[in-house]
C-alpha cells in the first residue's frame, strides 16, 4: 500500500511533489535534488503512481456503457437521428391519408402555378411566366435583374448553403419538428430545430375540427404564434409562388417545399405546417 510521507526530511512537501508530478510548473530546485536523492526519486515515483491510480479509479467509477453507445444510429439516440440519418419512412407515411395529403398539395400547387402564370401574363409589360417563376428563386445569391428586392416576394431562396423561409417573418416562432402521436384533438411534436423564437422541446398543437392529422414521424416546419391575423391563402402573390418550390444547388435535384397548410392551432391562434420533403437537410432551413 502507498504510504503518505508527511514529514519528509528532504525539504520537499507532498504538495510540491504532487504539483511537479501533475506538470503544473517547472521546479528547478526539485529537479536538482532528484539527481542526488534516491529517496526523493522514490517519493516522486510513488506520487506519480498514486496519480495514475486515482485516474484509473475515476475511469472505472463510470458505469460501463453498452457496445452500441457510440453508434449514432442506436435507438436510444432517436432524438438525434434527424440530424444525421436519412429520413425514415414511418408506418403511416405511405398510408392513404399521406397519399391523399400529397395529392392535395400537388393539386393546390398546380392550380396556383396556373393562376400565377395567367396573372403575370395579363399584366402589361410583364415578364413571361417562366421568368416570373425564376424571379422567385435566388440561386447562389444572384438576384435576377429587375427582381423585386422585397424578401416577401423572393420566396424560398437558396444562397448556396441555406434555404430561407421568408414567410417566417409573419410569425413569432418557427421550428422544425417531427410529428408525434395524436391524442383526442391534440397532436404532439418533438422540436428538432428552432428557427425563430423560443419554445419547449415538445409541444402539442390543437387539431382543428375536420382537419386531418399529420402522419406520425413526418418532418414539418411549424409556423406558430402569428404576429397578426394572417390568412395564408389570401396572399398568393407573397406566399404562394415562394412556397411552390425551392431550388437546390445548381445541378442538384430540386427539393420541393410544399405550401404550408393550416388545420392546427396553438394558444387559440392558427398554426401552419409545411412538410419537409425527404432529402432536405433541416440544418439548411433558415428564418429571417
Amino acid at each position, binding site marked *: 500500500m502507498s504510504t*503518505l510521507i508527511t514529514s519528509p526530511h528532504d525539504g520537499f512537501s507532498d504538495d510540491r511533489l*504532487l504539483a511537479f508530478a501533475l506538470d503544473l510548473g517547472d521546479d528547478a530546485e526539485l529537479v536538482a535534488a532528484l539527481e542526488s536523492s534516491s529517496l526523493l526519486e522514490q517519493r516522486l515515483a510513488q506520487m506519480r503512481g498514486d496519480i495514475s491510480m486515482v485516474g484509473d*479509479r475515476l475511469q472505472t467509477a463510470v458505469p460501463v456503457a453498452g457496445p452500441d453507445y457510440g453508434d449514432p444510429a442506436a435507438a436510444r439516440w432517436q432524438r438525434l437521428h434527424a440530424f444525421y440519418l436519412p429520413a425514415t419512412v414511418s408506418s403511416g407515411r405511405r398510408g392513404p391519408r399521406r397519399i391523399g395529403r400529397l395529392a392535395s398539395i400537388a393539386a393546390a400547387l398546380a392550380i396556383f402555378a396556373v393562376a400565377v402564370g395567367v396573372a403575370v401574363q395579363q399584366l402589361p409589360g410583364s415578364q413571361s411566366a417562366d421568368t416570373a417563376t425564376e424571379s422567385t428563386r435566388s440561386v447562389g445569391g444572384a438576384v435576377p435583374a429587375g427582381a423585386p428586392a422585397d424578401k416577401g416576394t423572393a420566396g424560398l431562396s437558396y444562397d448556396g448553403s441555406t434555404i430561407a423561409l421568408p414567410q417566417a417573418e409573419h410569425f413569432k416562432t418557427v421550428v422544425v419538428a417531427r410529428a408525434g402521436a395524436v391524442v383526442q384533438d391534440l397532436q404532439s411534436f418533438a422540436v428538432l430545430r428552432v428557427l425563430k423564437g423560443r419554445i419547449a422541446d415538445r409541444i402539442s398543437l390543437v387539431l382543428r375540427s375536420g382537419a386531418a392529422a399529420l402522419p406520425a414521424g413526418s418532418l414539418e416546419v411549424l409556423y406558430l404564434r402569428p404576429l397578426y391575423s394572417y390568412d395564408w391563402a389570401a396572399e398568393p402573390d407573397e406566399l404562394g409562388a415562394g412556397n411552390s418550390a425551392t431550388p437546390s444547388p445548381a445541378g442538384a435535384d430540386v427539393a420541393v417545399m410544399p405550401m404550408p397548410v393550416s388545420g392546427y392551432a396553438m394558444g387559440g391562434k392558427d398554426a401552419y405546417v409545411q412538410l419537409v420533403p425527404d432529402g432536405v437537410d433541416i440544418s439548411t432551413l433558415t428564418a429571417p
Partner: protein
Amino acid sequence: MRRAQPEARAELFRRYAPQVRKILFLQGLCDDLDDAVQEVFLKVFRAKLPREETFLGWFYRVILNTGRDLGRRRKSRQGLMHRLITVAPPETAAPPAHELAQIGDPDLREALQSLGPEFREVVALRFFADLSLDEIARCLEVPTGTVKSRLHTAMARLRTSLVAAGGIL
C-alpha cells in the same frame, strides 16, 4: 453560417459520445445520463458552429454548461420533492439521492463528494478528455493558474482520501 453535414455530425457523435458521458457523469448527472448526452448533441447540432480552431473549446463548454443546467434542474426538482415530502410524508420516504450516489466505489464517491463541482470539472477534463492545462482554461474561461490550483487541490484531496481509506495499493 457554418453547420456540420450529417456525416460529420454522426462522426462527431461516434467519437465523443462516450467521453461526453463520462464528463457528465462526474458532474453528477448519474441519472438520465443518456438524456443528458443527447441534450449536449442536440445543442451542438442546432448551433451555429464556431471556427474550427475554437471548436473543441466551444464543444466542451457546451458539455459543461449543459451538465450544470441539468444539475440545477435536478436539484430544483429534488428541493420540490423534499418540500412535498415534508408536507405529506409517504410511508416509505427515501432521502434524496446525492448526485454521485451511483458511484459504486464508496471511497472514491466520498472523496468526490468532498469536492465542489468546479474541481470535478477540472478533473473530468484532465482525465476523461485528456486536455492540457491551457485547453482546460480555455474551456472553463478561467486563467491557467486557476486550473492548476483546482487540479492540485482536487488531486491532493482525492489522493489523501483514497490512501487514508487504503484504496491505493
